[in-house]
């Protein structure tokens, strides 16, 4: 089978699923904007048409105001092509279908995204906590609304750092 360039595969996907949009990134690197309901169809097509594709990762981005983005990155070394899928999600507890039965390598990436962002992957076999300690379950630390330790220093009872004198003010 001849190697498929990034834009050829993108065209094939768009012909079959017209809701998908494609944006060129760099030479032989393409971004596909995929509606959340079509993610399994698109990932299945990538799996079928590119035999040597490496699932690099899935991760979330918190855009605030209950808006999230999921980014999937796939790389084919023979075609030297990269596909970046971008899925927009909304809501307090956003949901999307899992793709880890198609690419097992994404299982842990989805699990991490779930605990860090609170994005629920439907039909995922194992959504236990992966990296976080038990007390952070349901707190979703990579959301922008999560208050970091620096902001919670007062609760700890430790001495607070002295504020710096403003410019022109004597110590």
């Amino acid at each position, binding site marked *: 089978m001849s190697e498929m360039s990034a834009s050829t595969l993108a065209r094939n996907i768009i012909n079959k699923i017209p809701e998908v949009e494609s944006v060129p990134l760099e030479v032989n690197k393409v971004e596909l904007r995929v509606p959340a309901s079509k993610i399994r169809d698109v990932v299945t097509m990538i799996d079928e048409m590119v035999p*040597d*594709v*490496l*699932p*690099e*990762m899935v*991760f979330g*981005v*918190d855009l605030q105001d209950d808006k999230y983005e999921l*980014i999937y*990155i796939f*790389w084919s*070394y023979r075609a*030297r092509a*990269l596909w*970046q899928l971008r899925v927009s999600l909304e809501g307090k507890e956003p949901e999307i279908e899992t793709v880890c039965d198609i*690419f*097992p*390598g*994404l*299982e*842990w*990436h989805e699990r991490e995204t779930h605990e860090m962002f609170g994005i629920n992957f439907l039909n995922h076999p194992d959504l236990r*906590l*992966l*990296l*976080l*300690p038990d007390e952070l379950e349901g707190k979703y*630390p*990579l959301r922008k609304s*999560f208050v*970091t330790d*620096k902001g919670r220093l007062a609760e700890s009872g430790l001495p607070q750092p002295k504020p710096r004198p403003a410019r022109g003010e004597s110590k």
Partner: protein
Amino acid sequence: MSPDILDETSEVWFGPQHVSAHGWATKLTIVGDYVVECDPNAGYFHRSAEKCLEFRTFRQGSLILERICMVEAFISEYPYIAAVEKIAGLEVPEKAKIMRTIMMEASRIHSIQFWLGQLSGELGLFTMMLWPWVDREYFLDAFEELTGSRHTVSYNTPGGVRYDFTPEFLDKLDKAIVRLEDRIPIFEDMLQGSPTFRLRTKGVGQYSAKNGIKWGLSGPNIKACGVPMDLRKDDPDPNLAYGMIDWEVPITENKEHPGECDIYDRVVQRFKEIAVSVDIIRKLLPLVPEDGPIVDPKARAKANRLPAGEAYGRVEGTRGVTAVWLKTTEKAQTPYRAKIRGPCFNSYYSLKHIMPGLRFADFVVTFGSLDPYVGWWDR
């Protein structure tokens, strides 16, 4: 094995206190001494590097990255810098490109030597544990001469490198490589010539390239199956010098099972990686220009505040595809989101598929052969 043993399954936690468990714990379900189910558990070292990066400036960020994997510090700090350079539009001087590449290859050799000692220790070959670690010291001396630090080198910076090569450093690097070249045949003989080593590694921990890629494995773990997947060749970073010279991607082919690799192949593959790295360093050293800047003079100002954008910086690490995805907002001093892709995240996951069917005693060696480094999954 008597049949009544086969009726019962028991669960064994391997780690996190075990000496060979560098801070990970894996739950193994065993029948007799055969593993039927493997459940790797990450998270014992998690320091939330991605959240920390959101509170550090772009010039500080790489310092967190290099602490994630200190044995390959020159490589692990690079993807973040590559992403910053892409967004800021920095031009790296040619001299800095070559120097970066040389140091990354030296770091790769150092990391493989460290792994070689670790794996041999796990096999019980204690002479082979200490000898590569002695040679590793020569590389650390060279790093210390160049950067003032043995592990946390902070060498790359957005727009170039921090320190120029000195004659003393070049002497020390040459000494390290000459010693390495003398010693590699001895190591190969000690490992591959040892019947114990062959019995414990041939035909153990096998997987096919097709499965390995689906599990997200990359780097030497896939090249050992005969697949020439190497970002240095396939997607060379514009600010590195791999395109300036001729070199070959090393692969290992298993004659009995084509397209598969066992522990033995992965060890052979990493010896080949060392040879290729030495070759690249030898070819690049004469190309380093005598004069010229080592850092873009406008880099400091440009990297302080970045325009809004997204970039994906990646590099072929010692263990596979090492990458950082970066998103910035207009005129921000810190990243909006930085995602780190560590190659060992997927190596550790893949144990779940590799281990069932193997014996309990093979666990440490099988895992060790994937070159795990805990920082890459517990970022």
